[in-house]
Structures are given as C-alpha cells and as structure tokens.
C-alpha cells in the first residue's frame, strides 16, 4: 500500500497527481482516457509482489506542468478524465496549499 505523488508547479500553484496503489487494480481505464498519454499500466514494481498498477510514465515526470496542467481543475468544472474514469477512486489531482490539499 502506498501513495505515489507526482507534483508540478505552474503560475497558479503547486499540483499533485496522487495514485493510491492500494486502490488501483491496474484496469487501465485511466490510461485509455488520458489525452496526453501520461499514464500507463505497468507491473507493480514498487514492490516485489505481482500485479499491475498504473503509473506516470518516466518521460512525463519532468514535464507534468505541460502534460497535466490542461486537465487541472480550476473551479466548478468536471474532474479530469483520468479521475472520473477510475472505478476505484485511486487517482486524485489536487492543488496543494500550505494548509493542505484542495481539489
């Protein structure tokens, strides 16, 4: 069980894509809907136990502000495609503030 947080910062704040590997069953629905192909299903290599989980592709980890920012929530609009596609609520995309997280 672990939560993987991939962060990026742009002019409007610092954001994180958080993936809860305990909830993720590796179905891959998030990867199918991601418009920037950021996500991929990989063998769970965070641990030596078998199974698949989704992950942020290595090549996107250093440019999330370009890959993920177009989907970030800026108000009352809908959740990003990966978040709404996930049947187990394993993905969150949030703005991180000094006081904590807000969606």
């Amino acid at each position, binding site marked *: 069980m*672990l939560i993987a*947080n991939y962060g*990026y910062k742009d002019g409007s704040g610092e954001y994180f894509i958080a993936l809860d590997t305990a909830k993720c069953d590796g179905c891959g629905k998030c990867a199918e809907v991601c418009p920037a192909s950021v996500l991929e299903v990989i063998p769970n290599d*965070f641990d*030596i136990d078998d199974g698949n989980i989704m992950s942020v592709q290595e090549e996107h980890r250093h440019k999330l*502000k370009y890959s993920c920012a177009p989907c970030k929530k800026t108000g009352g609009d809908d959740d990003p495609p990966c978040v709404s596609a996930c049947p187990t609520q394993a993905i969150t995309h949030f703005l991180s503030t000094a006081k904590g997280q807000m969606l």
Partner: protein
Amino acid sequence: MSKEEFWRWPEYRHTVEGIDPTKGKVISGGVDIGSVSSKTVIMVDGEVFAQSVMRTGSSSPDSAERTMNWALEDTGLTLKEVNYVVGTGYGRVNIPFAQKAITEIACHGRGANFMWGPTVRTVLDMGGQDCKAIRVDEKGKVQNFLMNDKCAAGTGRGMEVFADLLSVPIQEVGDRSLAVKEEPQSVSSTCVVFAKSEAVGLLRSGWSKDEVLAAYCQAMAHRVVDLLNRVGIEKEFVITGGIAKNIGIVKRVEKELGIQALKPDQWRGDPRFDPMLAGAAGAALFAKVLYERSQG
C-alpha cells in the same frame, strides 16, 4: 586554461574482507543505473560483499555491464555465480542481465532501512537529476512518496556544474561551504545558468569562493525542504544519493527542518554504508528475496 575536472567525483570499487562467497547460500546483485552514476552491490546472504560506483555512460546496458564487472573484479566471482540480479534507477529497464526491474523509490526505501536500521521513517533521495521524499515503515516498505517536475538544477548534476564553475573539487564543496564565518544570504536561484552570472557577480563584489559555495548549498537545501514538509517528516530521517555525501547540504537541510539526519557520516569509515549505494543495496536485498522465492 586548466584541464582539471573539478566536477569529477571519485569512482571506486570495494570488497568487504572476511566474507567467503563460496560458503554463502545466496549471492544477490543490485544494479542502480542513475542519470549520473552507476552503482552495483553484491551481497552474500544479505550482507554487502562487493560494490562499485562509476559514472554512467551514454548507454545503460554498457554502464550496467561495466559497474557489475568492476564490482566482481578480484572477488573470484563471475556474473554466472550471482544467483539473481535486480536492476533499479533511471536505466533499470535497460539492464540485459537483470532478472527484474524495481523502481528506485522502493529500492532506496529498502536500502535506507538496511543501512540505517528499522527506525528510519523519512528518506530523502538526492540524486543526479531529481529529488524524492519517501516515507517508509519499519521494514523499509514505501508508504508514500513525493517527487516533482523541477529540473536538474540543484541536484547532483547541478552541483557538478557549480563545482567546475568555481574551480573547487566537488568533494571539497561541503566542507568549504561550512568554513564560512557567517552564513551568507542564499543565492536567488539554483539554476546553473543564472547561478553562473550570480556567482561571478558575487565573486567580483568581493565574496570568497567559500561564501559563494555556502550561498549555493543553502539554496539547494532550501529547494528540498518543501518536498519534505509535504511528505511529512518523521524521525528518523536520512539522506541517500550522491548529494548525501556533501556535508554542507546535509547540515543545511537539517537546520531548515529542525531535525538531525541519522548518522550522516557513517560511510566515511565504512564504504558499505555509502549513501550513494542505498538504491543498489535495496535492489540486492530484493534480489535475495526473489531468488529464495524462485527456489520455493
């Protein structure tokens, strides 16, 4: 112009004396191909037996082969006799002789647990190209980790460029940055492009090299504090990766966090605890477990 390469940190190999690999039940290997350095740890029944650290070349498979062969040199062992190899790091999927790849996040967590013991809860991996804050449990299993998309400035590669810029050998940067009488104001950016003009300006206005180094180390330390605060710092706290060997950064991270790192100096007397090798050590420990499982 001097041809001296101030950025060049020492590559080395080491064999631990008093271990007979022929008497061991499991010989496991961990290979960590980072963006800047390539590391191998060979373990005999879960104890460090041989290790090597060298610069990563342009090809991951070549780097992996070179660091593995160097670690095995003079040990009497060949790669065939290593029962199981786990690859980790940036180039982990490109290691031809590794049976499995495991992310460096898991390996650093496991390696930190091995090097500093089960009380470690927070691991800061300061690598050649990025920094990761990792929370682990008493078994070294990752519970939570955090990284961001910041560029390589203010990491190992940034430090190399900066050492070259000031013509100070990279191993001396930490000590020299602590030799200042008073901590100067931090440089405004860890960006090596901006740092160059800023450092040159500071030197011209009469700052000593030590003061400029102090200001740069301060900026580098400050950069990771945010990451650590977000993951939530819990004792014990350790730093892994090449930058962990820069005492000027370690001390400043400690100061900003208000928490001491656990035994940041133990590697000086014993290369088995080289924090640069935490990922490779973790990989070798996973390799041992995987081999034992495969044998039923």
